[in-house]
């Protein structure tokens, strides 16, 4: 095989994988329903991927049916409240036939059995300054229950993240 053919093949594979990956990640953002979820954040640092905020949702601590064990899939049916926040209405191990629902996994922690939805991290760069209280998350949920974060809100408005003294040497 010629070198150029090899190169085209390699780039085709790499860009193909990256393209499918990007499409998979952006699918709920393109097709999903927008919801606003209530949070309780903390603030760690990930050595692999930089600074991020771990978000603990109100719906992370829902009461789970007895048959659900650690590692099981959980479907939480959501309903919008008068405060414009989406709250858990019903929790089930089975996928609901209709309505807006979010898919999660039951996890054991020191707080007991909680639910993780794969949207527990919000990444930003180092030296970021942002409010940490009374935060809500604007997310989009696809038809399969997969969710992606759109942004952070405070009192219904997008938060303003500022970066202090960021230089190439900082």
């Amino acid at each position, binding site marked *: 095989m010629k070198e150029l053919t090899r*190169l085209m093949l*390699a780039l085709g594979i790499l860009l193909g*994988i*990256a393209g499918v990956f990007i499409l998979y990640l952006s699918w709920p953002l393109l097709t999903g329903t927008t919801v606003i979820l209530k949070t309780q954040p903390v603030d760690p640092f990930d050595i692999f991927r930089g600074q991020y905020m771990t978000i603990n949702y109100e719906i992370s601590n829902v009461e789970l049916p007895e048959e659900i064990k650690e*590692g099981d899939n959980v479907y939480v049916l959501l309903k919008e409240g008068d405060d414009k926040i989406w709250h858990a209405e019903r929790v089930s191990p089975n996928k609901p036939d209709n309505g807006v629902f979010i898919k999660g996994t039951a996890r*054991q922690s020191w707080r007991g059995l909680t639910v993780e939805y794969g949207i527990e991290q919000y990444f930003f*760069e180092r030296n970021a300054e942002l409010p940490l209280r009374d935060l809500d998350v604007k997310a989009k949920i696809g038809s399969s229950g997969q969710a992606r974060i759109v942004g952070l809100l405070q009192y219904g408005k997008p938060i303003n993240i500022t970066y202090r003294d960021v230089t190439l040497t900082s």
Partner: protein
Amino acid sequence: MLNKKGASFGTIIAVFGSILIALGIGWLIAQNWHQIPAALKIIILLSSTSGAYVAGSMLRIRGYANIGKSLLVLGALLYTWSIFLIAQIFFTESSLQGTTNLMLIAWLGVLAASYALNSSASLVVALVEFVIWLSLQFFAFYDDNYYRDPSFGLLTIIYLAVGVLLYGMSLLHRARQHKFGSVYQWWTGFYLLLFAYILSFQIVLPHLWSGRVGFSAPLILVIVVTALALIVMQSGLIFAKRSGNLNKRELIGVSLFTIFLMLVIISTIYSIGKEGYCNSRNYNEGADCNRFNDYRESCLNEKNCYWSPEDYNGIFGGNKNPPISLWLVWIFSNLVFLGIILVIIGYGTWQKQPRIINLGIFFFALDILSRYIGFIMDFWGYTSLAITFIIGGVILIIGGFYTEKWRRKLVAQARSETGEIGEVKKEEVSQQNAVGPKDQVIKAQRQQIQQLQKQVQTLKSLIQQQKTKKK
């Protein structure tokens, strides 16, 4: 170092340069990350990856194979970096399983690109990423279960199976005369040596089975990886036999040492002793686990307790003497390690492969150094430590001198038999003569030019004579 099959010094330096560029680009982008729109971020990442691959391939076409190689490594690293940063753009989960999935995607891409481009350097990146992915996946399974601690014994079995898998891949590729055959062969040797080296530390052994082993996802991973390794090895054997490339001595050596290493891993279950601490997992409830101190089995059966084995002779202040059984396993594991080193050196000499000999000698020196430090830490106080350091240092310098002499002799022997100019002989010649080999070449070339000039002169005069005769 002169080595036609191995990486040249320039290549190694260029690869280091690639790693630095990858890190530099990563940090530079990270510093200005928030100012760049998401779509542009993705374009920058993918175009820089593609750019490195295109430049690497073009340089290979134009005969700059070594620099091309390092740019392909840079491309592989940038691609891996891109996958992680794209995931960050979309706020995907940063749990251990999330990170593991990203590493899997990166590894698959780099591996496929290595085969598409027939690039050994890129394959090495893929092999490293495979081991990282497998390790992350192992720990990610434990991350899913709050009441289970990692069983390092299972992880060592996985790592051993990877060694068998690498050997199987080496057989498969060598059967087809594929150039990756020698890459997999060298990495099998390196991998098994590194594995045996880690097991040669006494402090490691008691920790192998500190977690509970039940039928769970990590155990399934062990079964899957082992089965895959055996299938690949079996296929490699069949193809190598058909093509007439099966080396029976090599096969016996790899099989024997794999069994010996497996014996070391399994025997630690029975030899680690019962001394250790049973701690509570849940601080709030304060489960009464301490009553199971020095009762490993009972501790592991308690859901809310976890086991910390005694660190015998450890750097963290272990104060108890290890049981005789642990000593025996430790001695056995060291004999196995030494055996692998000697067999690899012997194999390299027999197959006339200087790279394999160098690998064995490197680990031999590492073993001496590690055991020397280990012994003085375990058996001597500060005054004796100083004296032992001095005496040991003298022994090491003399030993190092003779080891290097031995290595050079073996390498020269291997090279002279393959018809290559011995590196050592060249070094000796250059030391003995005041004029270096480069000057000698120039001198010889000048003489050749002078001779050619004389021949041209005689030819010219002959032509002149013929012309005058015709006239």
